[in-house]
């Protein structure tokens, strides 16, 4: 009964939008917070990631952003944007996942590659001096993914230190 009703609705919709058909990308997003703990097993040290619900100042949170295209069409120009959480500092230790992220130091108004980020600083004399932005200046991180084909997924990681 239900099936036939859906079938007729689909048919009706198909008649109304014949060009697009029903193909549509649908990107899901998830994020997890984990912390690194050192496990000693038979005298050998290894670093393990465990879910972080509580974290002590100066500890590192590893954020993993999971994305997946559950639709039936390629998603294009996907931009995954993440403000660096309040109370944390971005860690530039080469741990951010590919593709190369871009950073903002003005709360997302503008972004650039890490090596090209600089800011002007007012000196006591009133003169402005240009300085290279450091990772502690970053307010946002973003990744641009040209295409997420239907059915594909990926993950992006970055690390922050709790102030």
């Amino acid at each position: 009964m239900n099936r036939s009703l859906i079938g007729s609705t689909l048919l009706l919709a198909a008649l109304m939008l014949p060009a697009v058909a029903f193909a549509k990308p649908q990107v899901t997003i998830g994020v997890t917070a984990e912390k690194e703990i050192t496990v000693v097993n038979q005298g050998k040290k290894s670093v393990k990631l465990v879910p972080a619900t509580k974290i002590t100042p100066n500890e590192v949170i590893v954020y993993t952003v999971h994305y997946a295209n559950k639709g039936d069409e390629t998603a294009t120009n996907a931009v995954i944007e993440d403000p660096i959480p309040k109370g944390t500092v971005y860690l530039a230790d080469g741990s951010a996942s590919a593709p190369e992220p871009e950073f903002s130091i003005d709360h997302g108004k503008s972004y650039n590659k890490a090596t090209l980020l600089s800011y002007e600083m007012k000196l006591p004399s009133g003169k402005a001096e240009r300085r290279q932005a450091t990772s502690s200046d970053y307010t946002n991180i973003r990744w641009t993914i040209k295409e997420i084909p239907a059915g594909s997924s990926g993950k992006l990681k970055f690390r922050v230190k709790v102030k």
Partner: protein
Amino acid sequence: MKRILNLCAAGALALVALAPCSAHAAGTQGSAANAKILNVVTVTYYDATGSNVHQAATSTSVLVALKPTQLTATVVNPFPNVDSGTTTTSLIALTSNANGPDTYKATWASSTQYLVTPTGITGTILTDVTGGSSTSYTSGADLALGATSIVSVQPAAGGSQVINIPAGSLNGIVPGSVVVINDTSYKVTATSAGTQAGYTQTGVSTTTGTATAEVLGSITITTDTHGSNVAPSLAGSLAGMIVGERKYLQLQDTAVVSSNTNNGVDTVSIVTDTKTGGYATSALNDTATFFFVSVSIEKTVANVTSPGASGGKPGEVLEYTVTVRNASSGNAGKVSIADAVPSYTTLVSGPGAYGTGTGNLTPSASDKFAVVSDGTNSVDITLNPSDSESQTVVVGYGGTQNNAAVAGTPITFFLGSGSSSTLGGTVAASKTYTIKYQVKIN
């Protein structure tokens, strides 16, 4: 601007933001426990045609955990030196240096010299030096201290200042608490918990959610008149600086000195730690000194009728002088002297001042027979032991059994400030009292 244009021409677009220098100079000690670290991630994407835009967002949050830290323990008022048998009180400030609330313990141990053991030490936790609440405390019991850390400070006004803290991180600090920021103590007059940031979407999400902005918590501080006594004027980049609660441990030590040549000493050693352990402070020594008491007594006699005579004949009058000297640093309490009318003599007494009476076997109860002096003031003592001797400054009391004057009659004196007709008073350190009375040889 010229430089930016040049960079553009070179094909390397530099991002420009004007930032004040101070934003890059924060010396942080740590985020407050229970502060919420909220991460919201958003994906924006297009369909294959590049014309229809979609968004999905989700969030995850982590709470800042307590970082256990040693307390700071400081003796504010050491034990003042006191008399044997009395109580001395000291005050120790215990200040949290953690980023959140924790349970601590303070333990103490005595090391005594010249004291009758065991000595009795009782503890009390005070929320302020005066005017706060007080709770009885035993060595090693639980002691809760709150703490948080600063996000920013508002300008000070009218002797008080508002400190912004992460929402949800009051962490046990309440109005009336004493808090320490950068080694200066302040009194808390008001608090507000604020509202933590939130985002409705969590887990795997296909849509965007609704964000709740954080409303910071706040603590209003004012001058701690019993502590640093400084009006708050915090300024600059103080993000992460600890706001630690301070409570006071009051110790009361009571002990009796076992020596009459040495002061008794109770060295009280205080150690603090977190309840779970591992953050012990080094021992703090607070020394209580109890004065030993040593009173000497001497009795001399002189012939009043024949001055210089080594003895006496019947009918002659002898004067006895009893000297009570406290040569120690402690005050002697409840000092009383027991004497008796010497054999073959009759106590000299009379209605006038001391020394004007005669040896009379049946004197009146109100007749005066002795004089007591503390070196400055003196009082004539009547035979009746239960009457109130006439004196403005209390020097002493005394009398004879049954108001009698015959040989062998017990004589009692009660000396010192606070004495009465039934109880001895205090002969203060380095004070000397003299008692004089006369007898006639039968």
